């Protein structure tokens, strides 16, 4: 078992879990644990442990696995770091531009300028990352990217059909009883108080 690989996998899983928890529930009551879990996941992805040394038990396993050596760890870290920089600066830039534009209030030029600076920083980080340059100059990688999208579309369709099937086979709830007089009075009173009757 390779330790940094396991940590990277666990951290990635925590990030997905945090994102799911963050997006679930009503908008005014999101999960309180999403933020801390996302931070732990991010820290785990960035601070990967070193490779095992020659006298440690996992060292020999690394001779057989392509991504286990130090080069694999270094290139993984490089891609993760540059991706995080690009994505976070793009998100901060978009958020700041939206806040500085005339959507919610008057245009705020300094805020807008800061937003465009961050968006430019994101483009700069993409241009600096050799990984993107290599990928976009290779036809086989471009073909992989397109195939990956087809794979995603196919999988989403399969999952959609499975969810439809689950909904169809689930037993339907029986129709509820109509409100009795007491309940009807309560509901009427609640609506009257919320809407106001002019009194």
């Amino acid at each position, binding site marked *: 078992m390779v330790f940094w690989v396991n940590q990277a996998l666990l951290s990635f899983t925590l990030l997905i879990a945090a994102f799911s928890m963050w997006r679930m529930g009503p908008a005014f009551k999101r999960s309180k644990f999403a933020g801390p879990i996302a931070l732990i996941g991010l820290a785990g992805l960035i601070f990967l442990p070193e490779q095992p040394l020659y006298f440690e038990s996992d060292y020999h396993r690394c001779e057989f696995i392509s991504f286990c050596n130090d080069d694999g760890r270094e290139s993984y870290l490089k891609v993760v770091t540059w*991706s995080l920089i690009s994505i976070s600066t793009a998100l901060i830039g978009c958020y700041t*531009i939206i806040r500085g534009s005339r959507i919610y209030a008057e245009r705020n030029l300094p805020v*807008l300028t800061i937003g465009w600076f961050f968006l430019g920083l994101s483009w700069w980080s993409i241009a600096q990352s050799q990984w993107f340059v290599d990928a976009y100059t290779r036809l086989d*990688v471009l073909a992989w*990217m397109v*195939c*990956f999208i087809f794979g995603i579309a196919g999988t989403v369709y399969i*999952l959609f059909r499975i969810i439809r099937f689950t909904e169809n086979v689930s037993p339907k709830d029986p129709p509820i009883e109509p409100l009795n007089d007491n309940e009807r009075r309560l509901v009427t009173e609640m609506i009257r108080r919320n809407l106001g009757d002019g009194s």
Partner: protein
Amino acid sequence: MVNFDFSMAGIGSLGAMVLIAMVFICYCFAIHLIVTWNPYHRPAIPLVSSLILCTGPMLAMSMEKDGATSLAEMLEIIFLFTSLGGGVIVLWMPIILVFVTFQMLIVSRKSPTEDPLIDMLEN
């Protein structure tokens, strides 16, 4: 021993990318269903299906060489699939960022209308 060689070009690697996409999405979906468990959503069938779709290709890959597998090998294969999947999604980022930048350009130049409701109706 696990052999992770996806560097070859051709039909094989293109099919592998479709499989990687399937495993990646099913893995994310399974985690989503587990951490946001709600019995009223009836998640049992989607969860079992996504786990089968997720573990099937990984089991097949880990048993490809010697017909046996272990937890360590499975974890390494999950790492490989999720890393490749995440990596390819990140590779799409420049293309996505072109659209986002264009949208931000429109937002930056946008001026508010007299009546936002009428504007919303017209759009």
